[in-house]
């Protein structure tokens, strides 16, 4: 039992190289100049153009997308990621609280109205959703980016399961002490759910930041572009140009994946807890 299993490590190392290799190459390549990449292919060593390339992608408007800078797009992605995560947590905690802690007439109906949304992802109702948004004049706005993504029950499901595992005695004790529904929710249940909230926040932030199809359709004004939308733009500029700006494309990819990677790696224990509890 004490022998170190060499093949196990070799397989794991091969797995790590397969998974992380492309990321390292993407970053290294982004630090070289476009001409250099064009003649020599992808790079595995650091180049000299790290600062100029990233400066250009972050601050210079007009490079890739016409008017918007990488920094603006990163801000928009951040607004979408955080706005979506916070909205999701607030909405779903409230709804889950009503479903678990109240006896009321249309409880079953409300439950099913909410949970049928798990059946249809935004992608399959994308065209009619677009029509609804344009009827409501919400195209090219942050509300428009966030609200349709909120229309699903994933978060409610997390919190419903969690609330059901909270001991009944807690509510009994709180009621004896004279706590009303609001007080119980805010002073007892919300603090109790801290780690659950953190786990849901991380999953939802990554999901929001990584959204692609919806921002691509509904943002036609460049000031609302997200980083993912910017990637689409890179490819459109690309077609027909002499030497494509490989370095800037890679730099954009690195910017687009950095925040979610940091969040997932730093908070991995919460994140894994949230993920593995989501299916129960």
């Amino acid at each position, binding site marked *: 039992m004490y022998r170190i299993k060499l093949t196990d490590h070799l397989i794991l190392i091969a797995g790590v190289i397969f998974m992380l290799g492309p990321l390292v190459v993407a970053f290294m390549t982004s630090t070289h100049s476009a001409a250099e990449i064009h003649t020599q292919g992808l790079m595995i060593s650091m180049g000299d153009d790290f600062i100029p390339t990233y400066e250009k992608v972050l601050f210079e408007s007009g490079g890739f997308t016409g008017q918007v800078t990488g920094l603006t797009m990163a801000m928009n992605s951040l607004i979408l990621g955080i706005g979506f995560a916070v909205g999701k947590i607030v909405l779903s905690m409230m*709804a889950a609280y009503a479903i678990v802690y109240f006896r009321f007439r249309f409880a079953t109906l409300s439950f099913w109205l909410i949970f049928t949304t798990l*059946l249809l992802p935004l992608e399959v109702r*994308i*065209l009619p959703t677009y029509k609804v948004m344009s009827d409501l004049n919400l195209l090219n706005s942050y509300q428009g980016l966030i609200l349709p993504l909120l229309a699903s029950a994933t978060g409610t499901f997390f919190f419903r399961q969690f609330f059901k595992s909270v001991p009944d005695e807690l509510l009994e004790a709180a009621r004896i002490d004279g706590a009303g529904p609001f007080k119980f929710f805010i002073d007892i249940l919300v603090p109790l759910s801290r780690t659950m909230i953190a786990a849901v926040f991380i999953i939802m932030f990554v999901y929001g930041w990584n959204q692609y199809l919806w921002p691509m359709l509904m943002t036609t004004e460049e000031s609302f572009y997200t980083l993912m939308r910017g990637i689409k733009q890179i490819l459109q500029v690309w077609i027909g140009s002499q030497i494509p700006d490989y370095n800037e494309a890679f730099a954009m990819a690195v910017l687009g994946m950095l925040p979610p990677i940091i969040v997932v790696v730093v908070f991995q224990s919460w994140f894994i807890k949230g993920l593995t509890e989501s299916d129960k």
Partner: protein
Amino acid sequence: MKRVQFNSRFLPYLFLLPQLAIIAIFFYWPSIQAIHSSFYIEDPFGFGSTFVGTSNYTDVVSSSQYMRIARFTIVFSVLVTLIVISLGLLLALKADAVIRGQSTYKTLLIVVYAIAPPVAGLIGLMFFDQHIGPFVEFVSYFGWDMRIGINYFDTAFAMILIAVWNQIPYNFIFFLSGLQSIPASVREAAAIDCKSGTRRFWTVIMPLLAPTAFFLLVINMTYSLFDTFGVIDVIVKDSAANNPITLVYKVYLDGFRGNDLGSSSAQSVILMVVVLVLTMIQFRFIERRVHYG
């Protein structure tokens, strides 16, 4: 449900209102519209629409192009699902077996979960680029002249590889936590009873992991149907031409590029039914698992 609950006539509705309002406006309204417009042929410029019954559906189903895309979607989803499950399981088994460096491997192997499909697609596109792609250069030594975006098979190959790469971490996490929740006593008993590691895996570990594997089967199917949109869009760059695409991509192309609202809606409804079936399977599974757990 709880033994003790609050009794209030209007409070629960107050708590439910925000969620219900958003769902009504952004879920039910568009879903009903999708079903409605799948029975109409709509003027692309918005000058009215004509009721055509089920002809949008029959047109879609009898189109050879649609059937070709449906076939590709099935092949794509099945391949991605199988590869991702086996690689995820292999890495989880090995990570579970090693003692030294386990948490390092775990961290390194979940990083790619955070990467958005279009970013994965962009990185993949560079690796398979005609001029700079190392993969293309590598396979050319074996006489494979790889041309992404031109050759159907090559493009499909790249799509599957990128989609697999992006989805392995998710499977890895679930398998690893499934493995680590197997009690030590069970493992010890199995180790005493059965010397052969392979047999122990198939007779003891695999049955215990089966629920996780089944859950991942459904999740990976949904992933390859919907979440790979970004990968595909980046690779085919809006020109479906002769490229392999999935059914969701066709909904998008017909609706937003072709302005064929009726057909696009009918396709949406067909997909809704597919997802409905997949989700029902998943729900039954969740119930069963909660029951036994």
